[in-house]
């Protein structure tokens, strides 16, 4: 293939050739190339296929506005789709694949879509795939997915890693073009801390595409007052002016060093922002304007000057703007043949014309008819002076004038306004804390941009608290002559939105069908909804719509731009918070003891709790049964460190508890514990637990593992907002005290062996008693409380003493066969006793529902009035009961519903009478048991009901019974 590389010049390093692959073929470029420029240099101008019609497409821009030149970069798990080739810096070993073509880029079967294009017009999804609805998933979706799609997703979990960084600065400058650099220099000179972001690897913005660009590196790098992030795109401006920016810190490296991120997401909190995002050249809409070889004139100029690549051997510039002549002059100087400048305007300013040699042909009042050529451009057919002419060329460069880049500025909420002088939308408000400078607010002249940048930089620094002599120079507007009508209607396809294949015809059709608001137009035609967010298409689309409606473009308005500015990998937003690192893991002080025993763990919130301790040859069910049986027959030990623990102090502590819990705390004696239940403000159950009085003004509260944080926040609310007059203070002590529950008929003997100075007799240490003592010289607290229904104690001591406590307890318990038990066995034991837990306190139930309504004392407490509403005390509400299968061999399922027997097996929806909340295969009873809620509650005890579980197509007949299956009189725990 012919080389399009220009012999001299450019910012490429010709001494460093770089090898890369595109669609399986090897190519060579140079260090300093982008993937796009290297392919163009190699004569590869067909770079992709379009989204809907699979039309051949080539390069349009040189930057992040690129709609066509998208590729898959990398392979396997590292493959990333829809990457703009213009933003990929060439490096050795780079592998790229074209997308959206089958079987190959040159020969694409799906391009037959063009033949059906009459059916693929605006709104074709809505029109074609409407009926019947049953066709959606099996038929339509498959067709659409195959036909219309861009790149393929990666084949595995992303193997790269991404990091987040937070940074504060006084002035953030977005864009290191001439205006941005001036703003940054001025703000830094004023003494403010400045951070500047630049999307490319180089500085200078559009001036970097000059033939002999200024090297800004020397004056800007290595300064303390000015930090520059290159390869960093500002993705959006968010609430309180937080800016998110993505640094592609590793993408340009062939290999990323260990421990280094592929990309870094910056979360920037600036005091003031200067947006200097430049302007984007706009295409011109005419038939076949999407052929490879049709590109923006600015892209051709940058290709020639920066990358030393000729956009073509023989080019035509289609002009609607004076800048066409600067481009022509530059290309001519690089030896590129310019067949003609076809200027669509009737009058061409003489200063523009003076920039080019006289021998370049200028066609005035030219009307483009269509781009010629089968795959790539072979000519431009145009009409001028009443006749039609085919001008031969291999590239058509579009100079449609410039759109200020208002994306970021409109993220912050201000809608852009139309500025007639430059035929473009400009930001409405640029006067801080978000300032704008240079081309993004419609100032295009280079020296004017520098001055504008200085003014914005000084203003921003001053607003951030760094006064500086502000130059009060108003914005300089260069006189420019741009044509406002950039679309020419023809018979073929004239594309407005290249990436989403939206034609001028589509826009007119949508307007005709009544989609006349810009937001409706956008959704109906998908104009501007592709990954490029309409950077090159939006204004042209609006202009066609305005024309179709006979309105001014300023009355049509714009759609709202939204972040992110460029497509961003989800991995960058996730950062390190993925997989196991999604949230912290909390381990109890006994964790290694459980690990030594081979425990299987379960996550409860962030905690890891032992679930069961399998012994050799045991499965989960036999392990649970063995553990639960050991507690009932001898003694078991369970880690209860994860329970929420809160210390309360103060003369009003008892009064405060009285308002939190439904039951009474004023008369609880020192050295005693009590079970309590608390409500939310709406009267539903919040949590339950045991709270002990250690002194008149000192209480120790426990709450469930899962609700610990919520209960503490609830207490903050109560003490700070509801009862600020109460003299009470409290704090979490969950991680200060580790805890073990010792349960079973032999627990007293084990406890006595461990604490030999403590009188553990029933008389000295009765049920619900609390004793403070010492373990290994550290404070210890022992509570005679029971969740299992057995004689039981909870031992709390200093978190750091856990290993010693575990070891000594094993020794004291050895002769009794002390058995560690996990959360599963704990669950079995509490279900046997009918004790409620998270499955019963599920956010919908009341104290009365779970059978604890009698605890409600005659006093004020949070949630009481709401709990007393008629609907909350209705006898028909489902209330707690126990259940067991009539056929004792049947299995019960949590989540099953109670239905009336004649509703079993009926296919229509049936009335649920309640649900099963917890089940267990009880080793102590020898069959499945369960807890549940049924209409009528305890009044149904002795009745039978059907329990259905449609997920497994099961229906089991059950007997409703008392929820306490084991030792209902509590003789064992008082023993």
């Amino acid at each position, binding site marked *: 293939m012919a080389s399009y590389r220009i012999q001299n010049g450019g910012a490429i390093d010709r001494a460093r050739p770089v090898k890369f692959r595109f669609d399986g073929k090897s190519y060579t470029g140079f260090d300093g190339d982008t993937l796009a420029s290297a392919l163009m240099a190699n004569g590869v101008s067909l770079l992709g296929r379009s989204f809907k019609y699979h039309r051949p497409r080539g390069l349009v821009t040189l930057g992040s506005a690129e709609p066509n030149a998208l590729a898959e970069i990398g392979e396997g798990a590292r493959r990333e789709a829809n990457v703009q080739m213009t933003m990929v810096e060439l490096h050795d070993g780079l592998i790229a694949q074209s997308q959206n073509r089958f079987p190959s880029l040159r020969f694409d079967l799906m391009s037959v879509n063009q033949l059906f294009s009459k059916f693929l017009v605006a709104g074709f999804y809505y029109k074609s795939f409407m009926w019947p609805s049953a066709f959606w998933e099996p038929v339509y979706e498959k067709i659409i997915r195959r036909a219309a799609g861009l790149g393929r997703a990666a084949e595995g979990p992303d193997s790269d890693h991404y990091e987040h960084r937070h940074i504060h600065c006084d002035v953030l400058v977005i864009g290191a073009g001439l205006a941005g650099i001036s703003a940054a220099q001025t703000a830094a000179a004023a003494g403010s801390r400045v951070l500047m972001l630049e999307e490319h690897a180089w500085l200078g913005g559009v001036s970097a595409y000059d033939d002999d660009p200024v090297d800004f590196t020397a004056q800007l790098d290595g300064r303390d007052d000015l930090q520059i992030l290159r390869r960093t795109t500002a993705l959006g401006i*968010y609430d*309180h002016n937080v800016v998110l920016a993505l640094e592609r810190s590793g993408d340009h490296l062939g290999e990323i060093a260990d421990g280094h991120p592929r990309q870094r997401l910056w979360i920037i909190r600036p005091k003031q922002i200067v947006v200097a995002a430049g302007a984007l050249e706009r295409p011109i809409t005419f038939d076949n304007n999407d052929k490879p070889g049709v590109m923006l004139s600015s892209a051709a100029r940058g290709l020639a000057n920066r990358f030393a690549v000729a956009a073509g051997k023989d080019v035509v510039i289609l002009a609607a703007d004076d800048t066409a002549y600067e481009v022509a002059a530059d290309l001519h100087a690089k030896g590129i043949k310019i067949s003609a400048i076809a200027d669509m305007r009737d009058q061409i300013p003489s200063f523009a014309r003076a920039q080019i040699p006289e021998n370049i042909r200028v066609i005035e009042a030219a009307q483009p008819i269509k781009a010629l050529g089968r795959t790539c451009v072979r000519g431009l057919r145009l009409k001028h002076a009443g006749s039609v002419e085919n001008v031969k060329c291999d590239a058509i460069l579009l100079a449609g004038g410039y759109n200020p880049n208002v994306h970021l500025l409109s993220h912050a909420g201000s809608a852009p306004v139309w500025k007639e002088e430059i035929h473009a939308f400009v930001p409405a408000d640029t006067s801080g804390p978000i300032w704008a400078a240079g081309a993004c607010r419609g100032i295009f002249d280079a020296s004017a941009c520098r001055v504008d940048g200085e003014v914005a930089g000084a203003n921003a620094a001053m607003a951030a608290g760094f006064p500086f002599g502000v130059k009060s120079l108003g914005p300089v507007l260069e006189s420019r002559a741009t044509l406002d009508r950039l679309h020419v209607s023809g018979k073929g396809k004239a594309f407005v939105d290249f990436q989403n294949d939206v034609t001028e015809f589509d826009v007119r059709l949508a307007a005709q069908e009544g989609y006349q608001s810009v937001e409706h137009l956008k959704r109906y035609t998908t104009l501007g909804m592709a990954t490029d967010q309409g950077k090159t298409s939006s204004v042209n689309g609006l202009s066609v719509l305005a024309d179709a409606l006979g309105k001014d473009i300023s009355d049509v308005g714009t759609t709202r731009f939204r972040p992110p500015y460029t497509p961003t990998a989800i991995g960058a937003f996730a950062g390190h918070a993925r997989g196991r690192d999604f949230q912290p893991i909390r381990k109890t002080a006994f964790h290694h003891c459980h690990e030594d025993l081979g425990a299987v763990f379960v996550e409860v919130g962030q905690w890891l709790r032992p679930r069961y301790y399998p012994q050799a040859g045991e499965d989960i069910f036999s392990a649970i049964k063995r553990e639960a049986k050991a507690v009932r027959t001898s003694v078991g030990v369970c880690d209860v460190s994860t329970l929420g623990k809160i210390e309360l102090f103060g003369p009003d502590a008892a009064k405060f508890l009285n308002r939190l819990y439904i039951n009474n705390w004023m008369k609880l004696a020192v050295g005693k514990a009590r079970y309590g239940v608390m409500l939310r403000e709406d009267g539903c159950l919040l949590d339950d637990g045991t709270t002990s009085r250690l002194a008149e003004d000192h209480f120790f509260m426990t709450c469930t593992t899962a609700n610990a944080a919520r209960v503490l926040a609830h207490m903050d*609310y109560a003490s700070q*907002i509801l009862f*600020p007059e109460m003299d009470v203070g409290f704090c979490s002590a969950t991680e200060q005290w580790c805890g073990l529950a010792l349960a079973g008929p032999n627990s007293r003997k084990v406890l006595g062996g461990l604490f030999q100075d403590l009188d553990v007799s029933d008389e000295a240490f009765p049920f619900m008693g609390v004793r403070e003592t010492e373990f290994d010289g550290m404070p210890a607290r022992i509570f005679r409380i029971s969740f299992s229904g057995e004689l039981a104690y909870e031992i709390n001591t200093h978190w750091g003493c856990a290993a010693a406590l575990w070891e000594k307890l094993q020794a004291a318990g050895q002769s009794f066969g002390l058995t560690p038990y996990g959360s599963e066995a704990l669950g079995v034991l509490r279900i046997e006793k009918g004790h409620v837990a998270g499955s019963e306190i599920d956010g919908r139930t009341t104290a009365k529902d779970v059978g604890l309504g009698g605890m409600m004392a005659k006093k*004020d407490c949070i949630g009481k009035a*709401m709990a007393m*509403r008629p609907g909350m005390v209705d006898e028909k509400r489902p209330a707690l009961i126990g259940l067991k299968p009539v056929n004792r061999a049947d299995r019960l399922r949590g989540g099953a519903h109670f239905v009336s027997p004649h509703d079993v097996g009926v296919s229509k929806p049936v009335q649920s009478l309640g649900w099963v909340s917890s089940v267990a295969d009880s080793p102590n009873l020898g069959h499945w048991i369960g807890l549940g809620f049924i209409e009528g509650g305890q009044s149904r005890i002795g009745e039978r009901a059907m329990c259905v579980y449609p997920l497994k197509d099961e229906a089991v007949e059950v007997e409703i019974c008392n929820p306490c299956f084991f030792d209902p009189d509590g003789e064992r725990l008082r023993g």
Partner: protein
Amino acid sequence: MHQINCPWCGPRDENEFSYQGDANCRIATQSKAPEEIEDLLYFRPNPKGLHKEYWHHVSGCRQYIIVERHTLTHEIRSARLARSPQNQEQS
């Protein structure tokens, strides 16, 4: 991403706080009529404009802050401790 000026801790990121809703709906006593409590719990205004709301500095000083925030622009007009005496008098 909001920045809230906690009276104790200074300007802190929104991530450290948990939003706790309308600050005009204190139910300190249950002796009110159930209808009145129901109104406070379930029928809360959703104004376009300045709104007084609780933010709990849950990953900081654990104080409830009454934040006056503009629901359209997110501008924060003021941030005061909920437990300070003048705030209690108001409600």
